């Protein structure tokens, strides 16, 4: 079993990208931009 303590700490950008909650606002933003493009 690998020892986590020996692994280098992950960069914070990786931690953000692996956070499921991050992709909720990103998805909503993409849909919002598509709606804006459609209505304008």
């Amino acid at each position, binding site marked *: 079993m690998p020892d986590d303590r020996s692994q280098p*700490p992950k960069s*914070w*950008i990786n*931690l*953000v990208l692996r*956070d499921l*909650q*991050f992709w*909720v*606002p*990103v998805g*909503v*933003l993409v*849909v*919002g*931009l598509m*709606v*804006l493009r*459609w*209505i*304008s």
Partner: protein
Amino acid sequence: MTTAAAPAPRASEAIDARRIRTLQGVGMLCGLTAGAWLGAAEAPTKLVTLGLSPVVISLSMVIGVFLARWTLPALIQGTSYVAADLRQAPHLIVWAILAGCLWAVANTLTIFAVRDVGLSIAFPLWNTNSLLGIIWGIVFFRELRGADTRRWLGVIGGAVLMFVGATVLAIASASQSASRDALRGVAAALMAGVLWGTMYIPYRKAYLTGMSPLSFVTFFTVGELGMMAALGVTYSGGVAPLWDQLSGARHVLFWLLAGGFVWVVGDLFQQYAVKYAGITRGIPLSNTNQLWGLMWGILVFGELRSARGAVLAQVIGGSVVMAIGAGLIALSSVSRSEHLRWEEAAAREGDRYRVDPEYTRARIAGESAGAVRRRSWIDWVVVGIATAIIVAFAAIARAPQIDVAAGWTVALVVATIAMLVVAGGALWRVTRFN
């Protein structure tokens, strides 16, 4: 200015019930004050003669927002405090910029929505943002978990009442603009509500981690201005046409910048409300901005002067229903058991992003976590540049050609500033703006 930091308590130490009540009270007060200032922000924009493109109006306000969002944190905390906050939780830069992008797209969509279906339909649709915010608060951040039935009913019932009241007010204060494209307008308004409601995820994320709202908004505005500039260039047909429009509007830009500046004060209080009262309480309370906007419109600018009795009854009825909803929410403060769930969510968040648990715990309790406030020459340069820009636009601004009721203007300005003093004073005493 240097403020000595109080020693931080141990990470395992739970926040006591009395402290939670105090923080809740300050959070609720911030929510109500946010409503007053966000409502007042609409006043300067009413002074601007029509004829500007919606995107130019929105972009000009965002420039004012940008100036205020760098000036106020520099004045209150100093940029060194902001930098110290970011060293603790650098991942929040991404979240803040993302939140700013969501805000900019939502704001632009509302302009198109009002154009296509009018304010009476558009406003209630995008006002669903607080209901969506409550759902995200419950699902992602364990808000209302551990709360008793009375508090659930108070928050959900209050939010529904505010939504009903807002709908009645919007219908009463509707402009008479003809519907151009109903389906697109409704889609734009609904999407704006979804974007704003989802924007509260980054807000809560930041404040569960413990970041100061003054630090968060500094980067929020980078996303806001960047996205708004991109939209401005895209929808104006390029940089040169956008520049021409901004140059042509230079005599009224000051009023839009002022609107943006006032809006930032309201937004800062809204952010503190989210931090200390949670999304479920803070956002509905700050949505009382519609009441304040209506007061400015009716009392200062003489809107609805020739309205029929039925319309006035709608205005009074809608206002009373909204006020009752806000009161219900304000009375549904967070219980000790619910706050423990918040603290669990905060611990998970800190663990995920490897944030010092001591920092997170202290900041949730409104303490400084050892940060030192010190203003440097950088802060004074930032404040000096922002002030110079605002003064320059004020110098070339034309006086607005619009009748205002001077007495009511003074009364509302005094009331709004009084709320700032009371809420700002309480925030300083209890949290030192942490």
